[in-house]
């Protein structure tokens, strides 16, 4: 009997001990990562890889011990491409769920809708798309490529190879308008000529008139910064009308994988500068692609936004672990040292202290008649230098503004 009682006590002790260990773990709650990505609506085909990239990174980080020993809890909401929902869900994640970091947004319109809400909190926000550049805001870290990495490489190359006359087709919202402004500035510096610019309302899918306007203007090449599934119909219709002009873009191929969605040769002769495209053939990139496709076998294409979304979580991990804190101000102290770097599948990328944008290894790619992708030129690592040059310095002053070539910081 006695031995039985002792055994019972031991068992009780063991149970309590386990409970105590459980309690110790519960005292270290998971880090909450708020994610806003469209997985329904018009941009779902681009947003889906962003969700997948985030899920893959969270799974990998959790398996290897989390961040500072804490697991990550991913809270994803689907704003369905609606900017008002971005704001509503953004408030919900920041104020109710009290997330430690907010990630996401596809269009520049959704980012600008979110930014004022993020700015009222002390939560860091990661924007993971390539975009038109210029946001100088201490709350935001930009993981994607910007015009000095994409347009300052692509446009001179296109001018040299195809000629000085360009026609621009752009989506009619802040991304398209500001990207077109960048093109005007760079073309002017190169002595080129913008023979036409057409801004297209989102959702427009018929381009017969645009195609004729282009033929009337007789450009040497086209800059296509049209956005969304409806506007992408341009490529099919231009090919059917035998327009046959070289094209350049900052968002085609690696972002919208039009070369996978359209039947060849609709995307023939398209050129783009990218920090990531699935056809990159390096050991690190191949390893990354293998892990991705193992988890998501049905993925049509790993696009650059999905890749940047994956990197964002690793960058967040690096910042938190170096700062030994999840507070934005402590993380920004790490960024200010210039030592906020990770080894990404494209190579080493670092956050620039002045602008909080990311350096990237840029390559110029072209699409052939069978939609095969070729690397035309490797630019190596390019810093996001433009904001720093025009006077944005987040280590000294938080402007909370977006600058463009025609809207520069006032000199004070």
């Amino acid at each position, binding site marked *: 009997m006695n031995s039985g009682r002792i055994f019972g006590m031991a068992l009780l002790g063991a149970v309590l001990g386990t409970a105590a260990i459980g309690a110790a773990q519960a005292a270290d709650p998971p880090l909450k990562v708020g994610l806003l990505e469209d997985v329904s609506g018009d941009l779902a085909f681009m947003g889906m890889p962003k969700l997948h990239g985030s899920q893959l990174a969270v799974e990998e980080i959790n398996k290897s011990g989390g961040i500072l020993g804490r697991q990550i809890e991913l809270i994803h909401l689907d704003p369905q491409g609606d900017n008002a929902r971005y704001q509503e869900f953004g408030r919900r994640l920041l104020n109710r769920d009290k997330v430690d970091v907010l990630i996401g947004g596809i269009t520049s319109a959704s980012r600008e809708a979110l930014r004022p809400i993020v700015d009222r909190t002390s939560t860091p926000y990661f924007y993971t798309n390539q975009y038109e550049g210029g946001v100088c805001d201490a709350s935001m870290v930009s993981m994607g490529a910007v015009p000095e990495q994409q347009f300052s490489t692509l446009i001179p190359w296109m001018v040299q190879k195809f000629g000085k006359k360009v026609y621009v087709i752009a989506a*009619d919202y802040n991304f398209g308008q500001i990207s077109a402004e960048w093109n005007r500035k760079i073309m002017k510096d190169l002595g080129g000529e913008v023979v036409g610019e*057409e801004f297209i*309302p989102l959702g427009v899918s018929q381009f017969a*008139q645009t195609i004729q306007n282009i033929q009337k203007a007789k450009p040497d090449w086209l800059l296509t910064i049209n956005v969304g599934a*409806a506007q992408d119909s341009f490529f099919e219709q231009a090919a059917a009308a035998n327009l046959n002009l070289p094209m350049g873009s900052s968002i085609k191929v690696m972002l919208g994988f039009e070369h996978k*969605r359209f*039947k060849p040769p609709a995307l023939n002769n398209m050129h783009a500068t990218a920090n990531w495209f699935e056809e990159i053939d390096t050991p690190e990139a191949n390893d990354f692609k293998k892990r991705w496709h193992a988890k998501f076998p049905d993925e*049509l294409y790993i696009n650059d936004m999905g890749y940047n979304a994956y990197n964002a979580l690793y960058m967040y991990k690096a910042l938190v672990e170096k700062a030994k804190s999840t507070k934005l101000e402590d993380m920004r102290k790490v960024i200010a040292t210039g030592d906020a770097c990770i080894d990404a599948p494209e190579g080493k990328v670092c956050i620039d202290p002045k602008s909080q944008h990311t350096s990237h290894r840029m390559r110029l790619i072209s699409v052939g008649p069978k939609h095969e992708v070729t690397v035309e030129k490797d630019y190596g690592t390019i810093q996001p230098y433009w904001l720093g040059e025009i006077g944005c310095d987040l280590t000294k002053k938080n402007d909370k503004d977006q600058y463009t070539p025609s809207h520069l910081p006032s000199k004070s």
Partner: protein
Amino acid sequence: MSAELFSLFYQFADVFAFLILSAAGLAIVFGMMGVINMAHGEFIMCGAYVTVGLVNLGVPLPIAQILAALTAGIIGMIVELLIVRRFYKRPLDSLLATWGLSLIVTQSMLLIVGSAVRGIGTPEGSFAIGGYTFSTYRLVLFGCAVAVLAGLYIIFMKTRFGVIARATMQNAAMAKALGARTGRIYSISFGIGTALAGLCGALYAPTMTLIPTMGATFVVESFVTVVIGGANVLLGTAPAAVFLAMIRMALNASYGQIIGQIGMLFAVILIIRVLPEGLSSVLVRRGR
């Protein structure tokens, strides 16, 4: 000069075809039955997806397109039987019911088929006039739009079904009293309407990106055409499409797509302000 003239015609034909093909189905369902079918865009999407699916299975494009239109028509008749029929006396509720259907279908397609489907490519063929090159397929679309109008004219003006259908439209109770099976008339009319929506999707499928929400790109144009056209398909929708196509073509050519779209919608506001019953109210009155 002749190149410029042809270009004007081609652009007009292109916008006209888009308006007629996207609006015809909606106009029939609205004109015949007074039902505003908010799932119209989803029947267009259905036509497009069936076409691409069949072409990928090796079916020749024109046959795939006809089968896609028939599929949309049959699904439409099933939807009429299960849902729309219950709402004939409650037009506002039918609007809500079809809208709900539209949301369910879009989201289900996203979950089942995925967010994007690879396109099939436009049938080859282009020709050059002056400095311009044109896609032959766009003229085929124009031909189809004219054929749809001619077909509707024959069905509704020259057949026995058409006579009974028009009688049902004017006074359903009296038609029923005279022995017309109005329930079947409604079912067939709804089927014709959704088959035309499916045909629109089938015809535009090769020229577009296929995503579950693609119907939405047709919906604005189809609704404004029906709204300013009024309840009569032949005397309303067709003149409305001619009128809107002229405005849009002229503005697109001179000022680009943004002004083209703004101008078209502005014209719509003006017309419904002056003619609340739509263009057909004037034309039908003249005809009497």
